[in-house]
């Protein structure tokens, strides 16, 4: 379902944009305004991160946004309620991004049922490899939701194919080693890695970690299908406020 949507969008655009926010950061009201501005600026899909106290795959920017959102009282239920409203209001696909403990404590099947009922299309759970994800994969399939899996430059070809066999919607390719929000070298090496990803899967490829300006997005055209903007919008909101988001997204293509 998600894959079909992405492929039809790709008929019209050379590259799609996926953005990311941490729910409840800087506040739920601001989260709404940021999403509104991003959708108006033509973002094609979005990751909504449910904050977690131990986000091991995230760098300082997203880590601090997680902590601040939690300190200000963001709960899983508030995030679900908010996301339902978002999915009803805006006509692009929304995905959850969070860590496995959030699903596990809520109940994996119950969480998937809530996602489906709320109109969320899929999920990215960076600390859940398919080997540990039996219950999750079954629940996602049952509710027709896309489990998004991750490739990294350290993933061997064979494992890429293995991951692809469980993935739906698209593959999230991490541009480099390390955590979110650190600079990436957009070099030939990255191009070769994306070529390796392309050969391993038929799913569209999203490239994230370190994408922050038009030149990066331009580099990815023809190599990836979706450019992912993560920490950079949080930085922007921190420094220039919610009002700067629309112009920034527009500047990317």
């Amino acid at each position, binding site marked *: 379902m998600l894959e079909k949507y992405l492929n039809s969008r790709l008929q019209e655009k050379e590259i799609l944009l996926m953005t990311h926010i941490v729910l409840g950061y800087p506040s739920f009201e601001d989260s709404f305004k940021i999403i509104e501005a991003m959708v108006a600026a033509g973002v094609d899909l979005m990751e909504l991160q449910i904050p*977690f*106290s*131990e*986000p*091991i*795959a995230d*760098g*300082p920017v997203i*880590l*601090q946004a997680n*902590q601040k959102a*939690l300190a200000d009282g963001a*709960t*899983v239920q508030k995030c679900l309620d908010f996301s339902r409203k978002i999915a009803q209001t805006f006509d692009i696909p929304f995905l959850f991004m969070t*860590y*496995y*403990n*959030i699903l*596990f*404590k*809520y109940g994996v099947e119950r969480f998937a049922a809530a996602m489906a009922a709320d109109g969320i299309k899929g999920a990215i759970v*960076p*600390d*859940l*490899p398919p*080997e*540990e994800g039996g219950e999750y994969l079954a629940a996602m399939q049952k509710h027709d939701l896309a489990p998004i*899996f*991750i*490739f*990294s*430059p*350290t*993933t*061997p070809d064979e*494992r890429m194919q293995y*991951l692809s066999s469980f993935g739906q919607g698209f593959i999230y390719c*991490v541009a480099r*080693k*390390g*955590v979110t929000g*650190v600079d990436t070298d957009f070099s030939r090496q990255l191009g070769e890695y994306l070529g390796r990803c392309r050969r391993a899967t038929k799913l569209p490829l999203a490239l994230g970690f370190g994408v922050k300006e038009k030149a990066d997005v331009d580099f990815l055209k023809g190599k990836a299908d979706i450019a992912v903007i993560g920490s950079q919008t949080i930085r922007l909101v921190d420094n220039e406020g919610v009002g700067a988001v629309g112009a920034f997204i527009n500047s990317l293509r």
Partner: protein
Amino acid sequence: MQNRGYYDQYGGAFLPEVLIATVEELVATFEKAKQDPSFWKEYADIMSEYSCRPTPVTFAENLSNYFGGGRIFVKREDLNHTGAHKANNVMGQGLLVKRMGKTRVIAETGAGQHGMATATMAAKFGFKCTIYMGEVDVQRQRPNVFWMERLGAEVVPVKEGTRILKDAINEALRDWVTNMDNTHYVLGTACGPHPFPEMVSYFQSIIGQEARRQMLEREKKLPDRIYACVGGGSNALGIFKAFLDDPVELVGVEAAGRGLESGEHAVRLASPDASVGVAQGYKTYFLQDDDGQMKETHSVAAGLDYVGVSPILAQFKDSGRVRFEAATDQEVVDALSLTIQKEGLIPALESAHAFAQAFKEAPKLSKTEIILINQSGRGDKDIFTVADAFNDPTWQEFIKKKAEEYNA
């Protein structure tokens, strides 16, 4: 990875994709070393030459008489080089790092013992070394920071989250996902993703192997009860492992902090406050809220101040093979004081939890019964924390004077 390190429902390897290849390499290296008979010998030899192993078992005659119950023996892990059982795990992992050809090690530390041990190992083996330590723990254990830096390690104070042990683990994992090509993460306890719980308890099992032999030689019988403190669980598993098939009662003692009712504690297994969850790469009991967000923990002993616990101990909790108890900060300080006065032994605040629980039970045992306490570390090194715990006025005066000297 075929064996994913499950102990019933606990354990596993919940890892970001970028780490999978590195952890598989570690699993393969560890499996190969375990199959190689010369590896354990190499390990035991280096522990003997560098870290005074086998550490003795000491008969605590005065304490035994004082309580008038079971006879109390103490396994002296405090006599390891760097002053704690942490050296066992660290030297073992150091040998694996050499086999993997890596050149840099990183570690988290709470009390500073594991950081000290890792920095020492890195100095000896010629590795670069970075230690992550919660900002709160840096304050609590400044002398250890001094030594780690003298040993050539970079000590990074972690300012995120609750700024204690779990946050240091998160930062170490973030370093590892970035630098895994040349870097090994020397996790300090039997927690985290497979193979760490198994690997750390494998190296620590040298404690119980020695203790079992020593008790049989000296007393011609096994102890009736063994007490060990439980933070992550590595010293407890280290001494318990050799006795699992014996008729010996194993008692793990957690940090009750300011008391179970206060909510300010680190009791995962001996209280209903914890629940099963997945964080830091593994599934176990965590002190967490209903959403799965980790809670703040408290203990007078930084090394026990942790939200999770070894998945192997979680299994033993369910199976009943280990009994779990908890000792409060006050009980621990009292037990420490008594041990110093009666025996001239100075256990670390962490280890004093095991003493505190043993003292509660010793009077109820008969004189033919034997208690074995694992003194996992020494306390004299932690003079700032221990002096604070005792609220010693002459020490405070000395510190004030010393500070004035620096100002002058």
